[in-house]
């Protein structure tokens, strides 16, 4: 189930190279245990809370723990793909918050080596815009975008690495929306953030940083009842709007809208 759902996002390095061999060290590890049939379904709100040095994640269909120091955790869940999908989203919001990044309710795509984000809640037009994308556009997600600060570093010749723009990088995610299709497992520097609004005519308007921050905060995925984390996300969002131009994109569902995205 996992291999099928996350095809394209699985790394050979996470599996033992031969039977009985230890798996190479992964950046983090989640052990999954399936509960017997008849366990409750996902009919409860998800709760994420800090207990000492660990995070406890609960919903009707799963209980999980995440230890950020050890970068390890476990999940006990019913055999449904939505449980592991939710746990992965939550764990990534926690990992990203430590590093000045976040998951965003947004479609994202790469065009000419530049990543663009199209943010909005459901019905804002994320999937519509993704469907209208021209052939040269690589889709990263039509639902949940993965945003991380660019790491500052040098390439093998001592020059700033191509991704070192002092900005932000968007990565593809397997978290699909109505398109029901995972994004590509690639990344690119983020050039612009658009907040989507359906309209009769196409129009792009720049947004001030405060307005952009207000809108951004409404669309960042956020689960935890934790003030420290709230502050981390607020700081990350503030830095983001100071570094990435934001626009209001009023669009009619026509392919021509992509002419505005450059």
């Amino acid at each position: 189930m996992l291999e099928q759902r996350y095809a394209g996002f699985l790394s050979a390095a996470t599996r033992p190279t031969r039977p009985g061999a230890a798996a190479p060290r992964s950046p983090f590890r989640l052990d999954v245990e399936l509960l017997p049939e008849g366990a409750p379904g996902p009919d409860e709100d998800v709760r994420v809370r800090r207990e000492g040095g660990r995070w406890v994640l609960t919903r009707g269909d799963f209980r999980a723990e995440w230890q950020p120091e050890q970068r390890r955790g476990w999940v006990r869940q019913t055999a449904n793909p939505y449980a592991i999908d939710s746990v992965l989203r939550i764990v990534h919001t926690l990992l990203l918050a430590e590093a000045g990044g976040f998951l965003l309710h947004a479609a994202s795509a790469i065009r000419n080596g530049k990543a663009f984000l199209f943010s909005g809640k459901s019905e804002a037009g994320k999937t519509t815009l993704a469907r209208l994308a021209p052939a040269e556009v690589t889709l990263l997600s039509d639902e949940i975008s993965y945003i991380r600060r660019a790491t500052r570093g040098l390439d093998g010749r001592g020059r700033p690495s191509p991704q070192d723009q002092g900005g932000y990088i968007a990565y593809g995610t397997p978290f699909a929306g109505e398109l029901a299709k995972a994004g590509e497992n690639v990344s690119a520097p983020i050039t612009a953030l658009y907040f989507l609004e359906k309209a009769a005519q196409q129009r792009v308007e720049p947004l001030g940083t405060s307005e952009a921050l207000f809108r951004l905060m409404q669309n960042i995925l956020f689960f935890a009842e934790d003030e420290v984390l709230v502050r981390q996300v607020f700081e990350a969002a503030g830095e983001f709007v100071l570094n990435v131009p934001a626009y209001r994109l009023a669009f009619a569902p026509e392919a021509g809208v992509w002419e505005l995205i450059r």
Partner: protein
Amino acid sequence: MKYVARSTQVAARMLGDEMVIMSAKDSTLFTLNPVAAVIWNAADGHTTLERIVDDKICEEFEVDRQRAMGDAEELVSQLAEHGILLVSEQPIENEPQGLSR
């Protein structure tokens, strides 16, 4: 005498010229103009609002004291309503954490 103190339940940061404050409880966001930001930064729980207006607002912004005091009272009352500023007739002892930047 009215003492004002920043709540510890908020996060605040500058965005260009504006101070943006978020309630860490319900994630509500507020934007403060430069005058309001001065009051926010000076709200340490030990300085009276009157003194903040006299020393910071009237001096820095060259405004009429009576009007400045009226505006400050209104702002403080609004921020207190949302729980992001504490107001008391006595000095407020629990020093807020240094969340502003």
